[in-house]
């Protein structure tokens, strides 16, 4: 029941927000997302840390075909739901100073997207998963395309077509897998996740199914060389859409790999894992090097995201416990850090009207609060010990190192290169002499602090007490591994 509530509450709230014209919409949206967060906290309090799928609800959807409306949460789902419900209120709050046209539509779309995102993380039926996967895409497309920057129309269109293209292959693979399942007495086949887990296909079949599924997830994450939509889309989208895309939506891809790729076609994974790791590691180095050369802050963070996601992808495809656990915890960390960094870019952009690093400088002189917050999030992003990034990257790198020493060594470059581009940006933007644009730069307002403080707290919480979160996902990850190694 809690899962259903989590799933449908944002959609209901979206309808409510649609009715409110004008400025009231953002307040109602904010309260609705806080309620959603409270529901998620309630779920986490009642969660028993074992490998089972909890708060499950299983209703027939297309009964004759064995397609169920099956939702529920295991440890991994729960953490993803927690991340979503934690970030969305902050994303809504971060928009309070923006005057978007037609605010009721904007916030309704954000809430509607939240339903799609939660749906992806709690769906325990392949077709339901696909359903929510696309449901999440439509609102974000409209948010980015209506409220985005000057080149928004072609850029978001490319993003939309690209992701749909990938996900149609996922659908085809699901349909094929579905017909291989055993089914129940009611229907000849079943699309339940457990029915998929019981499949034992020969390795040639698994090999091509792997690519059908991987294509969809790789485009969403994005893994090199499927990343070409990402920098433009992140840059052209309004900040809130970028936060949703980078903070939560790309986790759909990683989550999809964990739930629907690794355990379903383990033989396919073992055939192609080397190649995927190489691609991911190319993504790490490539994303980092391009990030170093960027002049626009938003683009720099977009490319840094390619690098970070590359490491997560490399880690989970090692199929060892450190890699998987590191992937899960790094999804949380990356979501928190990237949302915070994009918000800081937005803060700077609104005060100075530029995102060019060379036009900025000397901001630290007048802004102690902003400087501390920025630096903390930045350190989280470059994986300094005691911050959240360290835990994730350490586990991921140790996972990759176990898999192959050489891969581990090259992937380790992420820490060095990450420090280079992040500190270079911080130096250019915050230190040095004041420029024309940063003259009279005001420190954080109450709203901005209200967004950044929770994020900063989480940076340290995960950094200092990672077990709070690792212990939630540990049994689920172990269960996943036992299915993979069966």
């Amino acid at each position, binding site marked *: 029941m809690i899962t259903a509530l989590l799933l449908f509450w944002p959609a209901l709230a979206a309808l409510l927000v649609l009715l409110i014209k004008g400025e009231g919409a953002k307040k109602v949206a904010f309260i609705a997302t806080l309620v959603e967060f409270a529901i998620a906290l309630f779920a986490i309090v009642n969660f028993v840390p074992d490998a089972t799928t909890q708060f499950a609800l299983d209703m027939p959807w297309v009964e*004759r075909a064995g397609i169920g409306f099956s939702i529920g949460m295991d440890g991994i789902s729960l953490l993803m739901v927690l991340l979503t419900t934690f970030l969305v209120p902050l994303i809504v709050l971060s928009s309070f100073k923006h005057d978007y046209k037609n605010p009721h539509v904007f916030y309704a779309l954000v809430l509607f997207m939240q339903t799609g995102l939660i749906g992806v993380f709690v769906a325990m039926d392949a077709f339901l998963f696909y359903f929510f996967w696309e449901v999440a895409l439509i609102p974000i497309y409209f948010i980015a395309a209506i409220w985005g920057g000057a080149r928004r129309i072609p850029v978001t269109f490319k993003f*939309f*077509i690209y992701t*749909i293209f990938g996900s*149609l292959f996922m659908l085809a693979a699901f349909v094929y897998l579905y017909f291989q399942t055993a089914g129940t007495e009611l229907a000849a086949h079943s699309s339940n996740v457990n029915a998929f887990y019981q499949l034992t296909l020969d390795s040639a079949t698994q090999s091509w199914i792997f690519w059908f599924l991987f294509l969809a997830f790789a485009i969403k994450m994005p893994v090199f060389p499927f990343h070409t939509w990402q920098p433009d889309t992140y840059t052209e989208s309004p900040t809130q859409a970028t936060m949703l895309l980078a903070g939560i939506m790309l986790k759909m891809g990683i989550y999809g790999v964990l739930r629907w790729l690794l355990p379903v076609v383990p033989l396919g994974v073992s055939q192609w894992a080397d190649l995927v790791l190489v691609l991911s590691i190319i993504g790490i180095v490539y994303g980092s090097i391009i990030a170093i050369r960027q002049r626009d802050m938003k683009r720099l963070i977009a490319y840094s995201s390619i690098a970070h996601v590359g490491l997560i992808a490399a880690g989970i495809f090692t199929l060892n416990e450190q890699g998987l656990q590191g992937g899960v915890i790094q999804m949380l960390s990356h979501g928190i850090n990237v949302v915070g960094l994009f918000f800081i870019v937005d803060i700077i952009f609104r005060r100075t009207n530029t995102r060019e690093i060379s036009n900025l400088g000397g901001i630290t002189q007048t802004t102690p609060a902003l400087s501390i917050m920025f630096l903390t999030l930045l350190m989280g992003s470059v994986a300094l010990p005691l911050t959240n990034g360290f835990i994730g990257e350490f586990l991921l790198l140790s996972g990759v190192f176990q898999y192959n020493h050489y891969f581990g060594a090259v992937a380790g470059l992420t820490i060095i290169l990450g420090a280079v581009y992040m500190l270079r940006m911080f130096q250019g933007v915050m230190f040095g002499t004041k420029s024309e644009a940063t003259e009279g730069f005001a420190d954080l307002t109450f709203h901005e602090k209200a967004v950044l403080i929770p994020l900063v707290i989480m940076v340290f919480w995960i950094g200092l007490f990672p077990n709070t979160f690792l212990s939630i996902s540990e049994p689920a990850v172990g269960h996943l591994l036992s299915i993979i190694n069966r």
Partner: protein
Amino acid sequence: MISIILLSGFGIINLFVGFLKSKRILLPLSLLFLAIVFGINLLDWNDTKSYFDNMITIDNYAVAFTGIMVLSTLLMLPFTQHYITRNDENIGELYALILFSLVGAIMMVSYNNMLMLFIGIEILSIAMYVLAGSDKSSMRSAEAALKYFLMGSFFTGVMLFGIVMVYGATGTFNISEIAGSAEALGTGGANNVMFMLGVLIIIIGISFKISAAPFHFWTPDVYEGTPTVWTAYMSTVVKTAGVAAFYKLMDAAFAASYPAWMPTLVAIVVLSLLVGNIGAVVQQSMKRMLAYSSISHAGYLLMTLLAFNEFSTSAVLFYSFAYSTASIAAFGVLHLVAKQRGSEKYEAFNGLGKTNPLLAFAVTVAMLSLGGIPLTAGFFGKFFVFSALVENPDMMWLIVVAVILAAVGIYYYFRVVIAMYLHPVAEDHTPIKSTSFINVMLIIITALTILLGIAPALLSGVL
């Protein structure tokens, strides 16, 4: 059966009421007739009966398809409210022709004898030739009617030729007896030249009717020239009837020779998908885009004929209805826009999201549905079609082709959505005028599309 008789009678009543030359009476009256037929048709559910020496069989298949065709007509007819102002001298005939053509369509889904199929196709087609040319003030409409008539009658002749050859080989017109005689010919008749030639020629004839490539050449011109309200009918009811008749024929009469005609059908499917989707990409006119998209949807629908299993029948039904509702909304709004802005190009839709949120939303849902995106009926349509096919492992490559081309489809469907929401309104564009009746109809169509996108079991479970 009663629905066929009733519709014929109602058509004649419409002709007489036509003397009043009042669409205030004719439109509600026709809608009432259709509602009655819809209800009466459902009485035959689970009550299989044969009529006229087994010429017609009303089974659940016939009832279900009759139901969605009558419903589609019911949803599409209100858009004629705006249409019939300039040539009001023939309103009675137009409304009568729609009902008559529906009689033909019903015969096409309930025939049990090839002659009935042929007569059904003729009744439907002749009414459509007239409707295509019903805008007498437009040269394009006259051109469309002439093209449609010449090509249509040629292909009907071709099909008759095929029917005769099958008759020559099997000695019967009855489709279940044909199956039996084909069995007696050995390998389902696949080695009998006359039989197989007949089958292939029939496939060509019906492919023309449902505008499947490579027999699609008439489609863009005829769709474009025909008054938009009748194009809506042409692309929905005519296509549904054609595909349902095709499916029934191949399933009941020629299933045993499947290996022999399967390659031909695969070629038709692939060509339809390619020509339809790629042709639609380069169009500048929304109406021509919809015409090409209707070719591609013929391809998707025909995919079900490559697999006869428990899924394929309901896949045809579901896909037809999903496609029909979306097409009606798209053509209906296009009709309003084209009439008031004088253009059928994408640019005519610029800023519609701002000036007419309801129309824009209805078109958006229709486009999402045609593109097969979840939350809409079109998604489950495509899903059921692919599901029907996937049990046949040799056909996986075809699914891949269809999936790639479905992504192409999203490209051109979204051009309309982008025009409506992302391009600014031109200065001289006033909001599109629409009546509350049409608005209610659009709301119903949109609600149906979304409802079937959330609870597909409502329709997929009936057959």
